[in-house]
């Protein structure tokens, strides 16, 4: 029988977990599967968790780790037909239900460039800039100090500005 507290935890955080996974893996179906995996892992370690302070941070940490592990193992993006080649770059299809059709291409381009960032920069950027978490919370999730997060975000932003500019110049958009 599943603990009532655990049921509440799922109810309260399922959307956050799902959105975080979606930002990393871009496909709704994959994000849903990963979210299930996150809660299965959480259930497995439920007793250990009770001693921890923040369920939200704990679940974000599991979601980030599961998503990154999934991305690492998914080495055949082209074969899966998930990515298409556009102006010399692999473009992901970001399947967020809230994106309007006229904005889809722009969203895909930005998410593709974020996907190209090194893992830690990518994680910090998604959590802080897209999920809107505080520097401190991102630090807790990633096990890093606030200054490290600031540094990661600074480098990520520089890199994105550079690659996006180069992309738009190249594709003359």
């Amino acid at each position, binding site marked *: *029988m*599943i603990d009532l507290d655990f*049921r509440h935890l*799922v*109810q309260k955080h*399922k*959307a*956050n977990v*799902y*959105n975080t996974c*979606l930002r990393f893996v871009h496909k*709704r179906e994959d*994000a*849903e599967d990963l*979210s*299930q*995996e996150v*809660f*299965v892992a959480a*259930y*497995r370690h439920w007793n250990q968790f009770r001693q921890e302070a923040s369920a939200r941070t704990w679940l974000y940490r599991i979601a980030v780790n599961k998503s990154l592990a999934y991305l690492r193992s998914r080495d055949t993006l082209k074969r899966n037909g998930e990515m298409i080649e556009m102006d010399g770059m692999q473009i992901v299809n970001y399947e*967020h*239900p*809230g*994106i309007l059709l006229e*904005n889809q291409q*722009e*969203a895909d*381009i*930005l*998410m593709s460039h974020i996907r190209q960032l090194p893992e830690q920069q990518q994680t910090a950027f998604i959590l802080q*800039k*897209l999920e*809107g978490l505080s520097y401190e919370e991102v630090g807790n999730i990633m096990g890093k100090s606030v200054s490290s997060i600031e540094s990661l975000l600074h480098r990520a*932003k520089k890199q*994105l*500005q*550079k690659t*996006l*500019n180069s992309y*738009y*110049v190249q594709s003359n958009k």
Partner: protein
Amino acid sequence: MFNQTNNLDRGLELLKNLPQAAPNEDFEKKLFLRLEQKGPLLDDKESIKWIKWSIAALITLAVTNAFVLSQQTIKVEEIDFLVVDTLDEGYYYGQELLAIDKP
């Protein structure tokens, strides 16, 4: 043409303002059913991992046993050989004794 900052800021503005996406309606039902029916330890990937480890452990055990048994066989053969030697010697010694006792 947008400058570098605008390209990023424009995209960020778009992505940040998206409404929160929700998983399928049956997400919880599916999850709880999975947890109740199979139990968390019977998760597919986890099961495969355990099966792999179990097979590896069995193979290691089998190889170790085979090695130990092969060593023991040599020892048994050695013992058999010694026993045969001892019996032979005993037989000849007995024959000699019988010969002495013969009139």
